[in-house]
């Protein structure tokens, strides 16, 4: 196993941590952080796998730069929405589904 593959495996682990956090954490800041951990994991897999032969590949590096900018944009919008929720409900978490909305036993 060479260094790029270790990056890729680390990325895979980060992706799994991020997805788990995104689904299980209730606090919105933690969800947003988990999304960023997930994103970093994907970027590591992308760059790590592409240069596993030892030759650096500029194409995935450029893709990761694009991905980072997209992640910044999404993070900023998520933070703005979270802040609105905080202003309105005083809580940094999504309200529970209203009872009965998605259940048959209303």
């Amino acid at each position, binding site marked *: 196993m060479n260094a790029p593959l270790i990056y*890729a495996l680390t990325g895979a682990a980060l*992706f799994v941590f*991020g*997805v788990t956090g*995104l*689904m299980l954490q209730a606090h*919105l800041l933690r*969800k947003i952080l988990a*999304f960023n951990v*997930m*994103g970093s*994991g*994907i970027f590591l*897999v*992308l760059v790590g*796998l*592409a240069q*596993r032969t030892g030759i650096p590949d500029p*194409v*995935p590096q450029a*893709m990761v730069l*694009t*991905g980072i900018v*997209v992640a910044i*944009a*999404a993070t900023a*919008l*998520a933070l703005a*929405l*979270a802040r*609105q*929720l905080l202003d*309105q*409900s005083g809580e940094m978490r*999504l*309200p529970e*589904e209203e009872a009965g*909305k*998605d259940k*048959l036993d*209303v």
Partner: protein
Amino acid sequence: MFDPIPWLILSPLIWATLAFVQGPGRGGRLAVAGVALQLALAATLAQQIIAGGARVYAVGGWGAPLGIDLAADGLSAVMLLLTQAVALPLAFYARAYFAAHAAPLRYFWPLTGYLLAAMNALFLSADVFNIYVTLELLGLAAVGLVAVAGGAGPVSAAMRYLLATLLGSGAYLLGVALLYGVYGSVSLAALAPLIAADAPTAVSLAAALMLLGLMLKTALFPFHFWLPPAHGNAPAPVSALLSALVIKASFYLILRLWFDLFAPIASVTAAQFLGALGAGAVIWGSLLALRQTHLKMLVAYSTVAQVGYLFLIFPLATGAAAEVAASAWQGGALQAVAHGLAKAAMFAAAGAMIAATGRDEIAGLAGVATRLPLTLFTFVLAGMTIMGLPPSGGFSAKWLLLGAALASGQWWWIVVMLAGGLLSAAYVFKVLRQAFLPAEEAAHFKPLPRTLEWPAFLLALASLLLGLWASEMLNLLGAA
């Protein structure tokens, strides 16, 4: 020869950006002109494809795999036409809606422009990483539009939608990363010949991740949790755009990936599983639509149900005889278009009813039949497509799907479709029954401008006439 492909993407980008510079609340006229131009461009492209077959456009002149290719075939032309044909009446409708409603308009037009740019770019892209960028553009524009109304309900719906869509595109992007790792390219044209039945595990995993991410974005049962609050809480023109078009974009990608890119590794078991989820969506979504007390939530759950029909393509067309597969495929595409037109009409009509009565509850609809006959007629016509009654486009679509199910002997999908049809009739009539009751004494109806009623009617009429034009559409769909 004039090439409409790049202009279909540039036009909305340009008018959206100019509308942003103009400022909050501005840009309506620009948007109408831009979408009208795009409709002409999409029609030109459709004609070119019928005459000359599928097209490839190399951005930057490099060509795949070094550069990014755009590609247009019959299916992308159909989706492009649907997008602009739904967006144009909705643009007129939105101008009237925001004028009559005094609802906060703010940056509605630029957000809509970026939404359309993302859809057009997505339908034209032939590069899986470029598709990821268009997906993010689409997701953020849609979330911004849901939140535009403000208030705790829409903002938390937008947040839930944002998290779901980000998780979906994350899974998709990891799939892209694995594909690049295995083959060293992200171009659909370069990847397709490389993927064979004996592809390494990483490719199957990539396919699963990409499809799961897109299913989450399409709100396929049981990933539909984000859709009803987002579509039910947004202003009516936004709900119409999202329900009619946005979920179709990710569905279009699932079709492309399943039948083009991953066809060699697509198994019958996986197809039956997708079909089962679709069946679950049809039944569950219809049952919940029937139980809603608020008009827009009913229409939103109806979308959950109608998305289910789309996924019946997979079990009917995978591993089946060519003729059966073609019929299933055509039925599915027709269902996507018919539902797009009908659902846009239905949400627009619902918005008009709510604007007139000032109430969102179905219970408040009494008297609509006498006061808003055109809008109620719109709802009925759209309901015919949703139920699948002849001669609507929804009927032709479900007929083709039923035919495919019969021909391949998969009777269980027929049961699902018939049950779904009955349930959808039940929830449409639930609204109609209330609308035909005499108005309450205290009820006060606000007069509506005609531009709030006619665009919805035209959309509903188009969904009905689609049944008669089906052969033209299928002709375009088959052009390769």
